C-alpha cells in the first residue's frame, strides 16, 4: 500500500510560559497540541475544525515544520520529515505551502504583487531566467483569476478577496502537492468568501492538490472537506468522512458544535 502523503504520529507542543501573573491557558504550560495523530492521503481534503484556541493553527504549523514539535513523528510519503536537513528539507518544503487567514497582514505592503508571488521562485528556483519566472507568475495569477496588470501593483490596491487570491497564487507558484489553508475565508465577506471557496475547489481539480483546510466554521468546511477531524483542547476528539461527521456526529462536542450553528430557513 502507498504511504500517505503526510502522516503525523502523536505530535505534542507546549509553549513555554512567557511569564506574568496573568498568564492563562496554554501560556502556563497546558499543551497547545496534545498528542495528535493523522494521515493525509494524496488528493483528499482533510478539514480540521474546532473552537478558537483548540490548537488548529499550532498543529498546521508543525505539519509544515514552521514550528518544531516537542515530540512525535512526521512522515512525508513514509520518509522522516523531522530528520530532513538542508537540500532534502528544502525539497520537501516546496511541496507543501500555506495560505493564511488574514489577507491584509500576510502580504508585504512594500512589495509589488509580481515580487510577492515570484519570491518563492527566486528562493527555490534561482536559476530560472527572468522571463521564465515572469511567465510562471502570470500563469498562476491567471489561475487564481487575476490579470497580468496585477504584477506592478501593491497589495493595498486590491480588495480583501483579491488579496486572498494573491496569497493563494504565492502558495501555488511552486506547484506544491499539499496546500494548508488556515481560515482562508474567515476574514472575508460572505459573497467574496464563496468566490474563494469555489476557486479552491477548481484549483484542486486542475492541479491535483491535496488540502488541509483549517476552519472554525463547519458550514465552510462542509463545502470542501472529504474528511473532517474535530479538535478540542489540543486533541482530535472525532475524525471521519465529512458526510458522517456532519450527519451523524458521535462525539458530544461535535454534536454541540453542529447544534450551535444558526440555520437559514428553507426557501
Amino acid at each position, binding site marked *: 500500500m502507498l504511504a500517505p502523503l503526510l502522516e503525523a504520529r502523536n505530535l505534542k507542543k507546549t509553549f513555554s510560559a512567557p511569564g506574568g501573573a496573568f498568564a492563562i491557558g496554554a501560556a502556563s504550560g497546558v499543551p497547545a497540541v496534545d498528542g495528535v495523530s493523522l494521515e493525509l492521503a494524496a488528493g483528499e481534503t482533510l478539514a480540521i475544525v474546532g473552537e478558537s484556541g483548540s490548537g488548529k493553527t499550532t498543529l498546521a504549523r508543525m505539519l509544515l515544520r514552521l514550528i518544531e514539535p516537542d515530540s512525535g513523528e512526521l512522515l512525508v510519503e513514509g520518509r522522516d520529515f523531522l530528520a530532513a536537513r538542508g537540500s532534502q528539507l528544502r525539497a520537501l518544503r516546496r511541496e507543501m505551502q500555506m495560505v493564511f487567514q488574514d489577507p491584509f497582514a500576510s502580504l508585504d505592503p512594500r512589495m509589488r504583487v509580481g515580487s510577492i508571488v515570484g519570491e518563492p521562485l527566486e528562493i527555490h528556483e534561482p536559476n530560472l531566467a527572468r522571463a521564465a519566472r515572469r511567465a510562471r507568475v502570470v500563469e498562476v495569477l491567471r489561475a487564481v483569476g487575476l490579470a497580468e496588470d496585477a504584477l506592478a501593483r501593491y497589495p493595498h490596491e486590491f*480588495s480583501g478577496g483579491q488579496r486572498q487570491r494573491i496569497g493563494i497564487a504565492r502558495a501555488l507558484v511552486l506547484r506544491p502537492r499539499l496546500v494548508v489553508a488556515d481560515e482562508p475565508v474567515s476574514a472575508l465577506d*460572505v459573497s467574496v468568501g464563496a468566490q474563494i*471557496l469555489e476557486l479552491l475547489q477548481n484549483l484542486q481539480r486542475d492541479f491535483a492538490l491535496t488540502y488541509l483546510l483549517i476552519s*472554525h466554521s463547519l458550514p465552510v468546511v462542509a463545502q470542501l472537506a472529504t474528511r473532517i477531524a474535530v479538535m478540542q483542547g489540543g486533541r482530535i476528539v472525532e475524525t471521519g468522512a465529512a458526510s458522517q461527521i456532519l450527519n451523524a456526529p458521535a462525539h458530544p462536542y461535535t454534536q454541540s458544535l453542529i447544534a450551535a*450553528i444558526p440555520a*437559514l430557513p428553507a*426557501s
Partner: protein
Amino acid sequence: MCVPVVRNPSYDVAMAPLIELRGLTVEIPTPAGWIRPVDDVSFVLETGESLGLVGESGSGKSMLALALMGLLPPGAKVRGEAWFSGANASSASRVNLLALGEREKIAVRGRDIAMIFQEPMTALNPVMRVGAQIAEAIRAHEPGISREEIHRRVLAALERAAVPEPAVRARQYPHQLSGGLRQRAMIAMALAGNDESAPRENGAGGKPRLLIADEPTTALDVTVQKQILELLAQLRRDLGLALLFITHDLGVVAQVADRIAVSYAGRIVETGPSREVLARPRHPYTAGLLRASPQLVRHKLEPIPGAVPALTALPPGCAFEPRCALRVPECAAAMPELRDAGPGHTARCILV
C-alpha cells in the same frame, strides 16, 4: 445653556413607533473625498421589536448605529431625522436623536438606548478592572450614588448578563476573560446605566427601551455565540427591549430578528419580515447572499461575482448593477426607489 430638544408635539406618542428614521444620511470626509456610508435610510422599529440590519463590511451598518448614539467620528455630517419615543420620565413627546445637545445625548445614551460594540476588546479599557468600568458607566448617569449601592448594582449588572461568579469577575481585567465572558461584561456595562430595580430620581434609572448590538457575536465561536444570542433573547423578554441587531450572518439574523433590513453600499435595498425575506428574497443581492452562504449541507456554491463598490466610486444607477446577473440597461441609468414587494416588504430593484 443647551440646545433645545427638537420635539414633535403633534404626534400621539402612545401610537408612535419606538424609533422612526427618516432619510438618515451620514457623510464622512476621507482622503479620497466625501463618502456617504449611510444614504437616505428610513425605517421604523416598534417597541419590543427586533430588527436585523444585514450587510457586508463597509456597507455602513456601524455608522448608522453610531449616528443613533451620537458617537459619529469628528467631521462627520448627519442629515435626516431619527425620532425616538422611548425617552423616560417627563418627556411626553418624541425627540429627534440627531438634534439633541451633547448633554442630552449623554443622558439618552446608556439610559434609554444601550449599545454593545463590535469588538469588546476595543470597547473595554484594558488597564481597568471590569467592575470599575461598570461602576463608571453607572456613575455617569447617577453621580450622587453611594459606594454600597454602586457595588450592588455592578454585581446585579454582571448577574443580569449571566456572568458566572460576578464578584470574582468584577475584580479581573478584560484580558483575563475569555471572548464570551468579555462580551457578557460588555452587555453588563451597556445595561448598567439602566437598572430597573434602582430607585428613580430625576428621571434616572428606569428601563432602557432599545439595545443596539453591533456584530456582538462575530468574533466568537458558535457555541459561545449561541449562549450570547440566548442571553439577548432573554433580556428582550425580561426588559421588553427593542433590539437593533447588526450582523453580516444571515443565519444569525434568521434566529434573532422579527424583521430584516438589508443594506448595500450605504442604502437599504430590502426590508421585510425576516422569514419572508429569507425564504422569498425580492432583491437580487439578498438572493445572491443567500446562495453564497455556506450551509451545513454541501451545495453548489454560487458566489456573487465582483466586489462591493468603493463608496468613493459608486456606479450611477443601482449600486448592485455591476454584479447583478439580472441587470437590464435601465438599471445603470438611475438609482431605483424602494418598491412595494408584498405586505411589509420592500425592495430597491426595478424588477419588483
